[in-house]
Structure formats: C-alpha cells, structure tokens
C-alpha cells in the first residue's frame, strides 16, 4: 500500500542515518533499522499522530546462517485506532548478538524476547529477567540456530535395529 510506504518514509525522514532499507513485499512494508536506534524509532512510531502504533503485535527471531549479519529480530507494530501495521527489522552479528529490549515500552515484549534468547542466543539489554523459557534451565545450546542439529532418532530398519535399540534409554525395571 502506498500509504504504508509513505508512513515508512516518515520514519526515514525523521531518523535518516538509522534506516538501512525499506522493503515492500506483497503489500506489507518492512523497515530495516540499526539496532542502536530501536527504542527511539518505536517510541516515535507510538507517539506520532499519523502512525499511532500503540500495540506490539509480534516479535520473532531469524537466523540467516551462514550469511552475515547472522541474526535478525523482526517486530510487527500495529495501530488499533488507524488499523495499519508496520514491520521493523533489526540485524545483529553472529558472534555477539545484542539487541536493545522493548520491555521499557511494552511489557508484552517480556516473554517473546526470552523466547528469542532461548532459541537463538540473542541477548536483550535492559530485559529484567532474561532466562530460558522453553527449554530446561540448564540446557546448553540454542536450539533454533541453523547449526544446531535437529536431534532426531534414526528410523529403525532390520539392519540397524539392534544399534538403535541399544542407544534407547529404557528404564531398568
């Protein structure tokens, strides 16, 4: 939609060095910004009269291994009054991914950021309680990264039946 593009360009005008790219795909507009300016851009989106993005709709992480920058965090901001949405995307490098946390603006970002931390290992600065949420608390590794194995069990055929059965931990009773 062209009006979404114009709204995205407003962000570009307001924060010129921060916006890396504006992508339009199938009618939706994603604004890719520098991660250091995330909180300012979100505050602007929330307070500006024409944007009024008062709701954080979604927060997800993506792993683009082996491309660099490896990680991305994708935000969907939605406006209840004006009924439009805008998407922000923030990239983080592979070796030490740190992204500012949005919990100061919206408390609802609490658990989704913990999930992204748990699954990808991206640290969110300013998060009050960054612990593992879905995996057991002493799990090592970040499961949703592309270099983490799926961890599946081999399909048992007659030729490998004994080998697979010996690895299965049956209880001793």
């Amino acid at each position, binding site marked *: 939609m062209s009006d979404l593009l114009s709204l995205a360009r407003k962000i570009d005008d307001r924060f010129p060095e921060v916006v890396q790219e504006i992508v339009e*795909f*199938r009618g*939706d507009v*994603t604004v890719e910004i520098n991660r250091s300016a995330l909180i300012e851009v979100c505050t602007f989106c929330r307070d500006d009269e024409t944007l009024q993005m*008062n*709701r*954080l*709709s*979604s*927060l*997800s*992480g*993506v*792993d683009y291994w082996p491309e660099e920058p490896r990680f991305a965090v*994708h935000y*969907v901001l939605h406006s*209840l009054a004006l*009924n439009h*949405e805008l*998407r922000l995307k923030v990239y983080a490098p592979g070796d030490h991914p740190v992204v500012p946390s949005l919990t100061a603006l*919206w*408390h*609802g*970002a*609490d*658990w*989704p950021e913990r*999930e992204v931390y748990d699954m990808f290992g991206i640290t969110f600065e300013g998060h009050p*309680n960054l612990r*593992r*949420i*879905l*995996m*057991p608390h002493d799990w090592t590794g970040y*499961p*949703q990264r592309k270099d*983490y194995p*799926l961890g599946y069990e081999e399909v048992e055929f007659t030729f490998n039946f004994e080998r697979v059965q010996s690895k299965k931990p049956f209880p001793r*009773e």
Partner: protein
Amino acid sequence: MTLTPDDLTHATEIESDHETVELALEELRGRVTDRAFTGETLLLNMGPQHPSTHGVLRVLLELEGETVITAQPEIGYLHTGIEKNMEAKTYEKALVMTDRMDYLNNLGNNLTYCLAIEKIAELDVPPRAQYMRVILAELQRISSHLVWLATHILDLGATSVMLYCFRDREHIVDMFEMLSGQRMMTSYIRPGGLWRDLTEDFLPALRKYLDYQPKKLDDYERLLDNNPIFLERTKGVGVVTQEMVLDWGMTGQMARGSGINYDIRKASPYTGYERFEFDVPLRTEGDVYARYIIRIEEMRQSLRIIRQAMDNLPDGPFRSNNRKYVPPPRSELGTSMEAVIHHFKLWTEGYSLPPGEVYVRTESPKGELGVYLVSDGGPKPHRVHFRTPSFWHLQTLGEVSKGYLVADLVAVLGSIDFTLGDCDR
C-alpha cells in the same frame, strides 16, 4: 514389564538434596518479594501436573495467607520444537505439524499457515473453498469455546456443564470426521483450498447441528448467567484495564472484555469474512464474567456466520488449479503428461516459494494468531514463527491475578483461555 516388589515405590526413598533446595531458593531472588525469604509469605508450587492448570503449566505462587502476591508461570513443559521441525520438512508436509500446535484450533492453525503460503505464492483460492474455510473456522471456534466452557466451569465446581459441552462437541467432531476422516488433526485446509470436496453427509449434518446448538446455548446461559455462586466467583475477578491490554499486547476476548473493539475478522478480513454479517460482542468491565459473556455470544455469532455461509455456498472447484503448488487429481494422471510431471515434482521435491517474508494474522478462538514465514526460495521454509495468543496472554498472569485469592487464580487461569500446546509450541 512385570513389576517386582523391589521397585522404588516410596517417594521418601528418593533422595532430596538440601543444597539444591537452597540454591533453588536463591535463584528466586528478584522474582519474588523479599518477604518470601524471611518466611512471611508462603512460596507454593502449583506444579506441572495439576487439575486446574489446563495442561502442563507450572505457576510459582507467593501467597500471603490466601492472597496472591506473585504468580509467575513457568512454561516449556510441552515444548515440541515444532518451528525447528517445520524447517526440516517441505511446506506441504509441515502443514501437518500446525494442527498439533493449538490442539483445540486445528483448522484455524492450518488456515493461518495456508494463508501465509498463499500470500507469498500469490495463489488464488476458489470461492467455494473460501466459504468452506469460513464454515470450518467458525465450527472450530465453537468447538474450542465449548472445551473452554467445559474446563473453566469444571474448575469453578460445576461438573455437569463439562459433560454437556463435550456432548455438543461430539457433533462438531463428527462433522470433521465426515470431511476428512479424522476427528481432530484433520489437516483439511491446504494451500490453495481444501484437501477434498465436501461429502454428501456433511451439509445435512451441519443443518441439523445449527438447529440443535442454539437451544443448548440457551440451556448453558440459564444455568450460569444468574447463578449466584458463579457470579460471586467471577464478577470483579481478574480485571484487565485498557492500559494493560495495550501494554501487554492482549488480543481476542481479553481486549474485547475491556472495551477495545478489535476483531481481526472485521479489521483485516481474510478468506472472505467481509461478505458475512456478524456482530462482535464487546464489554467494558474486563473481568472473568465479561469474558464469559463474550465467548458465549461469540458462539452464537459463529452459528450466524455458518448459516449465512452454508446458505450461499457456491459450486465450483475446491482447490486452486495452479499446478505448480496444487497436485493434480489422480484421474488426470492417466491421460496427461504434464499432470504426471507436476505430480512427480510436488511429491519428490515439493514446491518452492519465491523468497520473501510475510506476516499473516487471523482471529483464533483465543486471540490473534500470527504466522511469520520467511522463505529463501527453497522447498523448505527458512523460518516459521507462530505468534500465538496463549503465549502473549499467559505472561500477564502475574498482573491480572495480583491481590486476588488462590481460588480466584483458578478462575483467572480459565478465563485467560490458554492452551499449553499453543504456548510452548
């Protein structure tokens, strides 16, 4: 596996480590108030196995007497790694996994995922399939609300309503079985339309059901609406303010119970919802009772939508003709070479979507269900992330139940209407 008398049968024989208990208490510093460490307040673990937690949810409670000071939910006990598992399967095969996420909203999950694929691929859906998708999504909504009613009211103490609701749900589930052969995990909604056309027994059964269900809903309302025990337990309990809704990203009945009129079926309609007339119930009190009234009314509105869709159901194909994504019918395989080639390609490698990212949202019975689909141009999804309503609502438990009694906590848990499969994925 015969059991012998030497088996470990007493939990007292299981060693408990005093140091681990102290370490565990230290970990809680910052998450509970300091009064828990002096013993002024009671730390209670409402464990993963509990009749009222609707699945495997662990709630860490800090109680002062019976009043809840902190209630922190711990999830992850049902984490299935669905998103990572979907990255290892082709798009069509990964559809099967979406059924099992929110297991009360199987067709809704299918629909959301298929809408995302259709958006990227720019795949058309014929009108007959669109109307059927609406009918199925609304039937699924009624079925989910029936299970919600059953478990919520069971927690509040009325056991007979549970039996009534499950009896009604059997009718819906029988209809799903007529269409797809499966009661719950149907995978009936596929990219491009539906898996197969309607069977002959579906529409008469649906007509009969539409006459049957409103009377039963009247029965439930008569039982519960003015029931003094129910009113005592639910009015004024678990109040959610409008600021909380915006702050915590609540959607669905949590938002509409507090006066924020946001229904995705009206705001950004999908699969033809704009053609149907229906009301969206709205209340302003924001308590458990308001959300109960909204859900019962939503069931009635769903019946209204289904009646409109059923009366105007168009004829025509049930799935798109785009052979790049939709397999040809088997009857064509004997005569057409292109059909064989398409069939072969779709069954071995699967279709590849053009690269790009989309976010699609639908109104699931619990709130806003969103799919963020990243495609890199290959046959398998690069990243599928589900924005599930239960996950976003459950984090508010501490806020919503602060200051209420433990018995009210049970009512609040039921009223938030979460499903752990939806939450943990």
